[in-house]
């Protein structure tokens, strides 16, 4: 069962393509849009976070400062326990290994595992 949170009209902010697969306990924080392309597979305990924080105030390091959208390209595969941070675009055919925190954009056909990344563009 996916878990959803967010304020306002959250149902219009989530769009999922055809032939996608989501394993148990996917979490969508729908402060902004989350767009998932066709043929995307998502593992257990994956979180899509869209709420952003401002950290310039030393008295309170996490001040809510808005939101940023997430986009996942066609055919991508997101492993178990991955955390997708706000504003990230995961390219088409990208593969994200288990437990990775995706904080910046992932190019098309890139495989991420730990801190390493390998391009699958030449593979197939």
């Amino acid at each position, binding site marked *: 069962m996916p878990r959803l949170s967010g304020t306002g009209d959250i149902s219009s902010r989530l769009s999922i393509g055809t032939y996608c697969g989501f394993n148990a306990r996917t979490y969508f924080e729908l402060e902004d849009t989350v767009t998932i392309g066709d043929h995307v597979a998502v593992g257990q305990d994956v979180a899509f976070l869209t709420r952003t924080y401002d950290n310039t105030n030393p008295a309170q390091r996490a001040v809510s400062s808005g939101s940023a959208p997430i986009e996942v390209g066609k055919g991508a595969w997101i492993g178990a326990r991955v955390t997708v941070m706000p504003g990230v675009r995961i390219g088409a055919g990208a593969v994200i290994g*288990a437990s990775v925190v995706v904080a910046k954009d992932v190019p098309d056909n890139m495989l991420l595992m730990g801190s390493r990344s390998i391009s699958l563009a030449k593979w197939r």
Partner: protein
Amino acid sequence: MDRTEPKHTGWKRLKVLLYEETFGIHPRLIALNAMAGLLPRHKAGHARARLFSLAGFQIGARTLLEATPKINGGNALFSNLVIGRDCTIEVDCVFDLEEKITIGKRVTLSPGVMILTSTHELDIREHRAGAVQRSPVNVGDGAWLGARCTILPGVSIGEGAIVNPGSVVNKDVAPHTRVGGMPAIQLEVLQQSATSAP
């Protein structure tokens, strides 16, 4: 993309739909979760373990289940989890029982440990997660798995090994070593005491 879906009509379509929507539902597991859910978290470890063995899982004597682990899996789910005696399974553990998970004696699983037994084949760029692949996981006697570590399919953890918190283990761990990181690498060789285990 030349992946085509066979088109069924009438009864055949209803049968396929019913199969797809109900495949992998275990009434016994639902009943077990409902009963074990009544027990307080962090408490009633022995009672919860007893409920799990009554439901059909193999759980050894004096093993503690501090909270109901999250379980999913295929047809052979109840025979796919074997836990030895004197183990402690902490809260929020996840067992993916598509294949066999064998946990030895005196093993401690810290909060949030995830043991996976199924993954996908790396497929074409239009659909990276291909056919499902299953492989068993084995945890040796006396091992200690740190909080929120993830054990990937096919891994075997040696006796007396320690897995650091938060690490992702993607290959076998030698006995009496400490591993950590993402992916986990060997950090230390631990001393083996001459005294026999309890």
